[in-house]
């Protein structure tokens, strides 16, 4: 059974649909990357999956169970986590408090997860008692991803994790994403840096105007001349 499946998803804000029938599927332990031009509905798709905007048609399933239009809190309980593109930290809370908020629904002892997150993102360990708002862009992104990891998710949704980061930080974040994935977390992310992202992707989804244009393995998409010409800058 696939970890995650979306079939024929239509949805948008108000009456207007931005998504016009998106299909996706992801096995556990896979990295899926959504690429496409601006306004193709990439981030909208992530929000639709996470119950932040209404799905008018189609179905979304996690481990075979329908989660279409489920409440974010319920999805967190289903071990799915979402990292928004912007405003993805609590700036006045310390790094550690940010991580604790990720574990809000956990009633058990989550100290081992704190340790694990600090081992994923060593720069955070030294800054655990600093307000997250004082950190650099790359470190904030680490806080945001660390916060999402606190529930030990089976699937993590990342909305442009490298947006606004320097190339150096970008490759560092991609490396972390691989590490997280190797630890058994499914990753579905939207990326502007399509080429670099597809390199680490098991599956790639090229969206145009709210529909799948190409769906293939990351490698095949990079090697597909049509995709390369239109979406990867030649």
């Amino acid at each position, binding site marked *: 059974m696939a970890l995650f499946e979306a079939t024929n998803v239509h949805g948008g804000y108000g009456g207007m649909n931005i998504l016009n029938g998106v299909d996706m599927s992801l096995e556990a332990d896979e990295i899926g990357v959504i690429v496409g031009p601006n306004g193709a509905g990439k981030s909208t798709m992530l929000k639709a999956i996470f119950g932040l905007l209404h799905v008018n048609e189609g179905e979304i399933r996690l481990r075979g169970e329908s989660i279409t239009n489920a409440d974010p*809190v319920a999805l967190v309980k289903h071990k799915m986590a979402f990292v928004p593109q912007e405003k993805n930290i*609590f700036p006045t809370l310390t790094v550690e408090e*940010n991580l604790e908020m990720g574990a809000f*629904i956990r009633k058990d002892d989550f100290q081992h997860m704190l340790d694990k997150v600090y081992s994923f993102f060593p720069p955070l360990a030294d800054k655990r008692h600093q307000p997250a708002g004082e950190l650099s862009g790359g470190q904030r992104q680490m806080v945001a991803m660390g916060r999402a990891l606190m529930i030990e998710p089976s699937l993590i949704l990342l909305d442009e994790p490298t947006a606004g980061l320097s190339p150096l930080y970008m490759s560092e974040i991609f490396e972390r994403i691989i590490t997280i994935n190797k630890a058994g977390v499914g990753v579905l992310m939207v990326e502007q840096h399509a080429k670099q992202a597809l390199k680490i992707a098991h599956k790639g989804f090229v969206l145009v105007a709210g529909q799948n244009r190409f769906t293939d393995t990351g490698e095949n998409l990079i090697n597909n001349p049509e995709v390369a010409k239109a979406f990867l800058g030649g």
Partner: protein
Amino acid sequence: MNEFVFFINNVVISGLTIGSIYALGAVGITLIFSILRFAHFAHADLMTLGAFFAFFLTAMFPAVGPALGLPTAFVMLPLAMALTALAAVYIDKGFYKPLRRHGVKPIVIVMASLGVTLMLQGLIRMFMGTSSRNMYIDDRKGIHRIELPFDLANRPIVLTDPQIIIIVLLVIIVIALHLFLTRTRLGKAMRAMSDNPDLARVSGINTDTVVKVTWIIAGSLAAIAGTMLSLDVSLKPDLSFHLLLPIFAAAIVGGVGHPYGALAGGFVIGFAETLSVFNWAVLLRPWRDFLWFDLPPTLAFVPTEYKITVPFFILLAILVWRPTGLFKGKVL
């Protein structure tokens, strides 16, 4: 020396008392603003409501206080706090929550809170009438005169029971609130929701619970402030009109969204009021021979009956020169 005692009684003690009361109201306003993003105009009425609950309970069990050697209304305070907190939670459920669910602009909820103000004032007058009432029924206000061990000071420092209680309570509340906000899961969630409500929801924080806890805290603090003020002075149905401006001024002076700023703001407003109505002629009297002008019998910045203008002018000044408040809060 007597002049100095007069200053302590009329400025230090009064300022601390009224400052504590404003601070408790302002903390409530600031917490509600940080979580729900609207200015809760009915907050002073929650304070009045709390005082009336305390009065009602005092009238029902007037003998409890004398038996314990404390003001009855103070003994009844935990119950009054619980009732006010409950009222606050249900007011939110009945009036503000449906509006939030429709995603209206904050100003609409502010208007709704004005409606709640009028409603609460009507209800309070309906049940309690319009006259002012004494919170002491079977007991009397304890007044402590502390004689100073100086030859020159033949006047005592005067402290009343409610003044001592409110100042002690405030210290306990500040410590408790600090520990709650920095050490507990729910307190941190409150700060998280104040920082970034969307992310709080995405993180799996149960925002409904956080909202409820906010009302419980704000309502309880309002009940304490209203009851202690009424114990110190008297219980009037129009109490809220005298409190509304100072507590909002205190919240804004402190920086909206900053609980510690609201505490500081409460004392800024409280002391500004007491200092501006203080009769400075008393302090200057010993030096009257050295002054270049004739000392009038009363010399205050503002006559007592215009005390309410003081927070108003502080509010204006803050809004003009430092709209984010002393502690860099949000702009209303």
